[in-house]
């Protein structure tokens, strides 16, 4: 069978890009193969752990289940797009300050989900945070610190003056 490769064009972290993809490749593969972006990573491979979270057209998706071809014409944000290399996004900063991670493998996913949570609920309750992050797994179980990090990020955002942008 022909491998059916095709060229897709999309906006990646604010830049227009193109990539050559096969129909059976997923988003994680194209980010790694074509763009050397490793912040979204495949772990469970089933959309359950959240390690591969990226934001497509404003909504968080599991990159491991999302066909790369379907990125054509979309706007994609990854954890690498959150900071300019000098300044951390406030959500990232709150994860650092509250030690919201241990091994760090799941961390970009938690941060991307937190971005979407705060975009939708500026002042989330603890239950809302738990509901929202219930699809992100941390085997080190840094959950108590992750909760604190998210709460701190919400507070930082409410305090104003910080560069907390809604995703999308």
């Amino acid at each position: 069978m022909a491998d059916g490769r095709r060229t897709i064009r999309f906006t990646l972290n604010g830049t227009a890009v193109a990539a050559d993809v096969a129909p059976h490749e997923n988003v994680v593969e194209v980010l790694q193969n074509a763009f050397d972006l490793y912040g979204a990573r495949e772990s469970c491979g089933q959309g359950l752990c959240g390690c591969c979270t990226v934001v497509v057209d404003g909504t968080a998706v599991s990159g491991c289940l999302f066909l790369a071809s379907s990125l054509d014409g979309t706007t994609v944000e990854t954890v690498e797009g959150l900071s300019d290399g000098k300044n951390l996004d406030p959500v990232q900063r709150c994860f650092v300050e509250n030690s919201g991670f241990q091994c760090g493998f799941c961390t970009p996913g938690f941060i991307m989900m937190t971005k979407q949570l705060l975009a939708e609920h500026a002042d989330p309750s603890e239950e809302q945070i738990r509901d929202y992050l219930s699809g992100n797994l941390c085997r080190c179980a840094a959950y108590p610190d992750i909760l604190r990090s998210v709460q701190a990020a919400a507070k930082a955002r409410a305090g104003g003056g910080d560069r907390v942008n809604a995703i999308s």
Partner: protein
Amino acid sequence: MSPFELLEPASLDEALAALDPSDPQVRPIAGGTALVLMMKSRVFRPQRLVSLRRLNGDLRRVRVDDDGTLRIGALASLSELERSPLVAKAAPVVAQALRTLSNVRIRNVATLGGHLAHGDPHMDLPPILLTLGTRVRASSPTGERWIDLADLIVGYYETSLRGDELITEIAIPPLAAGTRAHYAKHTALSADDWPAVGVAVAFRRENGGLRDARVAVSAATERPIRLSAAEAVLTEGGGPETFAHAADAAADEVQTLGDLRGSAAYKREMVRVHVRRALHAADASTEGR
């Protein structure tokens, strides 16, 4: 995964034409959250996938008809339904269930049509939609037909859809005033697990009795089904004893399948407990209209 042909038609007609009723290796794909899993495990190796992502219009719209029917385009994502004020008003029990259905990322891309067409008996919405008298519209190159949800899912991962049919719309008839509904999800492993048993109930109170009582179960059975013996018991009264009897009737009639979340015997018992609890919870709900 292995390579396959991926088509992304821009219209429903093109999509229907790209399907092939004679080839099971041609499948439509919407959110893909279930299908891609099967492809990754290589138990499903498609020849051709027909992506529905470019289809728009009514297929993604949620609206309420003049007669009060809630009409949901099959490609509406579960997140869109979760946030829809129309769904919250017309079927609050659906909105409630969506909050704990899988996770945010899955809900962001999974569509209601795909949720139903996949035929997985562990889904949360089918039992609820069964209690609400839901019908689905199936479109094919030769026309369309309406299928009762009860007749759509016929077995484990099996539906009555033909290979060239797509679900295009889901219609939930207006609920009679005062209808109370509840969905009870029992998880046996982690809190965010799939349901080990899902029980949905709906009824309304009239003159001290219950009317239009519906009880449906999923995850414990080969397919989501209504429990008619339990429903029959509910016509006999409206108090706690009736609820308990209905729960017993449900447990007696249900054919449970054991799996790693619980044996058939345990699931039968959970049907009993959660039918009773769901009836009480529905009765106590302030969300009934």
